[in-house]
């Protein structure tokens, strides 16, 4: 830690020195530019920004995002005069689609909270010089590796994981109670859940038994629990019978009305879509989304009905869900990677991290906080219990789920899954043709990237 502080002081001194140099240059410039008032105005405009060392971080509104980070950023700015960290709130779709294009043209923010951890790895800057590398390694080992992309030998610290998220289901207990159907226990299969929720929906007149976000990431939970490998140890795509079976089962659930067509059927392409309002309005008995929605469920459902998070439904392969989460990373084009590094190091300190996590009601990615637990002061008992359920899924996660999450071409496969499954649902493809198309899409994407 002392090394970090020494390094930080040296950096601060260097930054201060550079600032003084800039001031001297500015004074000289002023005397030269007095001759032209128009040029003087231009100088005034640029001199105002030259002294400020500012970094811009993009984040969205959900969970561990701009609103929950704001107090920590404010404190950091107050404690570090001369440095300004600015949070710029953008839509999640902007982080998914616009940010990569900007990064490719060496433009965009200095940092961002991203979820395509491996896919954007070539744009990250190594922050090792400005963070406590040992501390980061011990706290965030798994996610740090995801951020390193294809390089297994890399020791770079490219960012700080924001939270660990877990896919998972929410179930309306009140509807189960009204229907007089027992809630499936831990170890229940996807088919058990489908059967039980169908009974509940039929008895209570609920629109749909089950629903799942239109997301390749969510579908991967089902596929891997059915035994799909998706990616092998060497990082190659695996399209196997288990994936085919999972798609076939998923399609059948849409055809027999177990799942609504609104999400996967009505939408095309790689579009991500959620219909969590169906669960909030008690229009579906079980909703498969993720741990990041906990705060919303707690806030919006309130006492309208009883609900709980469920253990990962099992398939023939395993009882797994997908790990997920984002990371705050800094980009190579940043003029001030040192500020990004110092801020990320500041944010990683347990007291700061805990504050953001408590506000966002999300699962920590930090080993210490997972072990110690986080107190969520504003969260209800039901939410605390649901968080516990989600955290309990972490040890059960299949290796394939971890491999897929860190795979560089994860998004190519996820986009293909959503597109092709929707085509099957609309009779444009058969299941077998869809599986062949998925393999072809990802192969072409990998070729394009290389």
């Amino acid at each position, binding site marked *: 830690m002392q090394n970090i502080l020494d390094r930080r002081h040296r950096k601060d001194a260097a930054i201060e020195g550079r600032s003084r140099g800039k001031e001297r240059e500015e004074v000289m410039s002023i005397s030269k530019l007095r001759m032209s008032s128009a040029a003087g105005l231009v100088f005034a405009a640029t001199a105002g920004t030259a002294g400020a060392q500012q970094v811009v971080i993009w984040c969205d509104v959900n969970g561990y995002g701009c609103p929950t980070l704001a107090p920590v950023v404010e404190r950091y700015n107050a404690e570090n005069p001369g440095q300004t960290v600015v949070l710029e709130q953008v839509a999640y779709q902007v982080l998914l689609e616009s940010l990569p294009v900007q990064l490719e043209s060496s433009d965009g923010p200095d940092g961002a909270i991203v979820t*395509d951890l491996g896919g954007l790895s070539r744009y990250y800057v190594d922050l090792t010089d400005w963070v406590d590398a040992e501390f980061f390694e011990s706290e965030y080992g798994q996610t740090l590796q995801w951020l390193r992309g294809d390089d297994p030998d890399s020791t770079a610290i490219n960012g700080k994981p924001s939270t660990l998220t877990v896919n998972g289901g929410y179930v309306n207990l009140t509807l189960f109670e009204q229907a007089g159907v027992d809630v499936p226990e831990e170890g229940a299969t996807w088919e058990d859940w489908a059967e039980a929720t169908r009974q509940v929906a039929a008895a209570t007149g609920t629109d749909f038994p089950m629903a799942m976000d239109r997301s390749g990431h969510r579908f991967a939970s089902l596929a891997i629990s059915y035994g799909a490998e998706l990616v092998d140890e060497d990082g190659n795509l695996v399209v196997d019978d288990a994936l085919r079976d999972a798609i076939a089962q998923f399609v059948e659930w849409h055809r027999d009305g177990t799942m609504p067509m609104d999400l996967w059927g009505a939408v*095309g*392409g790689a579009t991500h879509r959620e219909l969590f309002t169906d669960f909030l309005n008690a229009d579906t008995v079980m909703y498969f989304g993720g741990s990041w929605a906990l705060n919303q469920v707690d806030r919006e459902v309130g006492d309208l009905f009883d609900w709980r998070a469920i253990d990962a439904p099992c398939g023939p392969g395993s009882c797994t869900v997908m790990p997920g989460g984002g990371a705050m990373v800094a980009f190579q084009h940043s003029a001030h990677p040192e500020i990004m590094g110092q801020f990320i190091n500041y944010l990683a300190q347990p007291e700061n991290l805990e504050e953001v996590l408590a506000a966002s009601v999300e699962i920590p990615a930090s080993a210490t906080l997972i072990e110690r637990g986080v107190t969520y002061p504003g969260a209800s008992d039901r939410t605390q219990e649901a968080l516990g359920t989600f955290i309990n899924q972490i040890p059960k996660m299949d290796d394939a789920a971890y491999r897929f999450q860190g795979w560089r071409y994860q998004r190519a496969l996820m986009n293909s899954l959503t597109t092709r499954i929707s085509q099957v649902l609309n009779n444009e493809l058969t299941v077998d043709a869809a599986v062949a198309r998925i393999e072809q899409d990802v192969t072409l994407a990998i*070729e394009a990237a290389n």
Partner: protein
Amino acid sequence: MMRKGAIGGAAVAVITSPARAIEPLMYGIQRLIGIKKMPWVFLGPNLGAVLLFSLLPVFINVFYSMTGSDRLFPVDRPWVGGRNYETLFDCQSFLDPSTCSRDLFWRALWNTMVFVPIQVICMIGISLITAICLNRNIRGRGFFRGVFFFPVMLSPVVVALIWQWILQRNGVLNGILTSMGFDAVNWLVFPNTAFFWTVFITVWAHMGFFTIILLAGLQAIPRDVYEAAKMDSASHWRVFTRITLPLLRPMLLVVFILCVIRSVQTFDEIYVLTGGGPGSATMLLVQYIYETGFAAQPRNFGLAAAASLLLGAALLIFTMLQLYFSRKTNNG
């Protein structure tokens, strides 16, 4: 030497006093290059802008369509020749998209070829009817003109979101239907109804613009022609077909061209409303290009560039045909 000095002096004068200096400057240039080359001096700036902002991007696009990798800068992109075009044209039957290696490209192409004529016919037809109605001396004419033009001012994303709220399973339209005793319909789940609504919404959103153009055209038709027809007891249909339509033809041509261009470019509303679904029922070519080049990860700029050039080539052929027929009509 003398000439160069004069031009230099004129150039200084342009900065200090532009209005007085332009004449000697032009005079100096004319003496230097001769009167025959003077048009190039006037054309030069515009020509430069066209080359830089229109032609150069086309050539860059041609280059990108023949390169691979997901890197943006040309130096990072390896040459692959016609492989992207081969990929797009790798079909057993061009009439059956499912036999094509890039089936979504062909589905999007067929969708575009169906969408454009339907949308253009609906747009021009409805805009014309609306313009004729608004051209009559009806009460609240100004208000109705505003009502029809209002959607044009909305952002396409806002238009799509408004209609999503109306059309979704628990949306406003189904609320109205069920309150009247009808069954709710999941409008965006079925390919045919989803396609219908994409046409309807895009027409609703843009018809105000074309209505205004046609209204201007209608108001430019002299009143006395109609009065003469009235004195001859011509029927409404005869007046419409023999007077209104022929005199409105120049405006209709403008509307037609603008409408086709806008229709081929349709993207935002449909992308937000259906994302190209259900399946690929409403995916148009521009969406395919966008998804391939920008939304996909890794981004396939080469394939997207090839697809966009093919779209450009199709539009060029269409434009030439349209110019040919419009000239023929004018001459005939």
